[in-house]
């Protein structure tokens, strides 16, 4: 029973990882940019929500109405102002720029909010649970998983069925041909980043509601999100969902063996996937 419980809790934890990872997956999928500022942006979203609750006393869930558009705008600005110019210097430059952003972001957060841990209070919901065949599942974790699946389904539908989504995929497949068809490549990239960072904002607020966070927490978020993306398969959103779940289960099952082994077990599963299926579980792409 303990093991079944560990797996179920892992699936719920995986929902959070998948939610955190889908923005990363989208940015990589469209622009081949590896955004090292991803984790910091998630934590910054959590801080923004925390600050809003502190300042205005608004309900925690309502903050996403403000946090998501703000971060999406930040994402648009980062892409237009920094990543697009960096892309002209080759694929190394955006990586270095995003690393610079991550360092700036983490230290700014520390300067403004100190290094103390915070948590966004959601009242009774944080302890509420659902009874399922003798197992107790956290209501909030369940909600996170549902939101993660909804976001990924939404992104897939958006990319495949809307005009802008089609333009984005066209730009991804062949930027020059897309430009010839009248698509503004730089705007498309910026929109993709805005959407991606919007999902990061949502994930960050959920993260802030479920756990204690501090300015350096972004490092862990970045690693877990990347592991989810790579386990699932590069550039595949469904893969990212699966990757998040696999990572979550690996961590909770590892922690069931010995609490100190939780994170390590996640890393090891990641390395095993690299060894035997480097293209990821759900990707047909050739990697190296």
């Amino acid at each position, binding site marked *: 029973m303990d093991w079944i419980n560990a797996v179920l809790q892992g699936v719920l934890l995986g929902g959070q990882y998948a939610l955190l990872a889908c923005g990363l997956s989208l940015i*990589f999928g469209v622009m*081949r*940019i*590896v955004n*090292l500022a991803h984790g910091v942006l998630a934590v910054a979203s959590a801080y923004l929500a925390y600050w809003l609750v502190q300042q205005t006393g608004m309900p925690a869930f309502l903050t996403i109405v403000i946090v998501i558009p703000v971060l999406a705008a930040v994402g648009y600005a980062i892409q237009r102002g*920094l990543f697009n*110019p*960096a892309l002209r*210097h*080759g*694929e*190394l*430059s955006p*990586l*270095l*720029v995003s*690393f*610079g*952003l*991550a*360092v*700036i972001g983490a*230290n*700014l957060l*520390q*300067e403004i909010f100190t290094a103390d841990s915070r948590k966004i209070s959601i009242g009774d919901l944080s302890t509420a649970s659902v009874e399922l065949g003798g197992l107790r599942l956290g209501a909030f974790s369940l909600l996170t998983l549902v939101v993660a699946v909804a976001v990924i389904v939404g992104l897939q539908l958006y990319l495949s069925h809307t005009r802008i989504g089609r333009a984005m995929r066209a730009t991804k497949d062949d930027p020059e041909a897309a430009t010839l068809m009248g698509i503004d490549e730089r705007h498309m990239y910026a929109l993709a980043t805005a959407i991606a960072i919007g999902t990061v904002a949502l994930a960050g607020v959920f993260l802030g509601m479920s756990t204690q966070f501090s300015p350096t927490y972004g*490092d862990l978020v*970045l*690693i877990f999100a*990347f*592991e989810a993306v*790579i386990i699932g398969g*590069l550039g595949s959103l469904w893969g990212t969902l699966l990757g998040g779940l696999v990572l979550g289960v690996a961590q909770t099952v590892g922690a069931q063996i010995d609490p*100190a*082994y939780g*994170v*390590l077990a996640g*890393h*090891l599963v*990641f*390395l095993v996937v*690299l*060894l035997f299926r*480097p293209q990821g579980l759900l990707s047909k792409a050739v*990697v*190296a």
Partner: protein
Amino acid sequence: MTPTIKVVRGGWPSLAGGGVLAAIVVFLAAAPWFVFSPGDVTNLVTLFALIILGTTWNLMAGYGGLVSIGQQAFIGAGGYGVIKLADIAGLPIPVAVVAAGVVCAALALPTSFLLFRLVGGYFAIGTWVVAEVFKLVTQELPGFGGGSGLSLTAFQGVDRVTRIATVYYLALALAVLVVLATYVLMRSRIGLGLTAIRDDPTAAASLGVAVRRSRRIVYVAASGGAGLAGALIAVNGLRVSPDSMFSVQYTAFMIFIVVIGGLGTIEGPILGAVIFFALQQVLDSYGTWYLIALGAVAIAVVLLAPRGLWGLATRGRYEVFPVGHQVYPQGSPQEAQSVDFEVESRR
């Protein structure tokens, strides 16, 4: 009439630059006798470690195109390794430091087979995960002090001046050796291949450069270098802990040093390390703001001066360590004006 051209590698300007550098090294070797206080000497060891870190990270990222953000795996392994080798195996400190570097290079070889399945940014993240695994395993291994770490005891009973001097000369010698070894490597056949990989991996492969093998060589060599630096940091600080030795902060430092100095040059990381070290000494009291400024400067350099400060100052036309060839036109002035190019294209 076709203009005659003269191809020069180095020449007297490089010799002069090399002479200045050699003079600086001689000065640094003599300085503890009459200039520096023990505190300065200990600080300078940090500079030498930074030069090693910058040079080897550049070898990997600047020439091999391998952006690792996980070299702290080997900094940490080198730090823990030197303490184990000196305290348990009883090796003399200089031997233990070099041996720690060798151990790190040996660890990097199997790691490379795993990580080379990833490319670009995913390789970067993979290296970080490996560094985290190294850290977590180190914490769990018996005899490694868990979360609080280890202290170096081999220096107990050695007087302070001898200890500081040993570490100082060791660090200076290793920094000089690492830079010279990088220079020799870059002038070799492998180095020519690496320069081609830096400019265009696909084109290099089509010309018969063994891209994968060359990259593996630089990855292993750079990891050995990171191990040496980690070992120096450990014997200089006398203590290691998982959170400090395996800190991703080191990667931030290496990237700043190389990017600000000049990616893909031998001189750039040295210049970058000196600038970084000087800024650190002056601005360290500003803590977070200092790191924020450093991040902003790095972004500005990437976007506005992608060849770094060394590239900005020399425009690729001068090398202290002559690796490339310069082409000069000879003949009439008109012809001289029409032939103005470099054999080696730089980004």
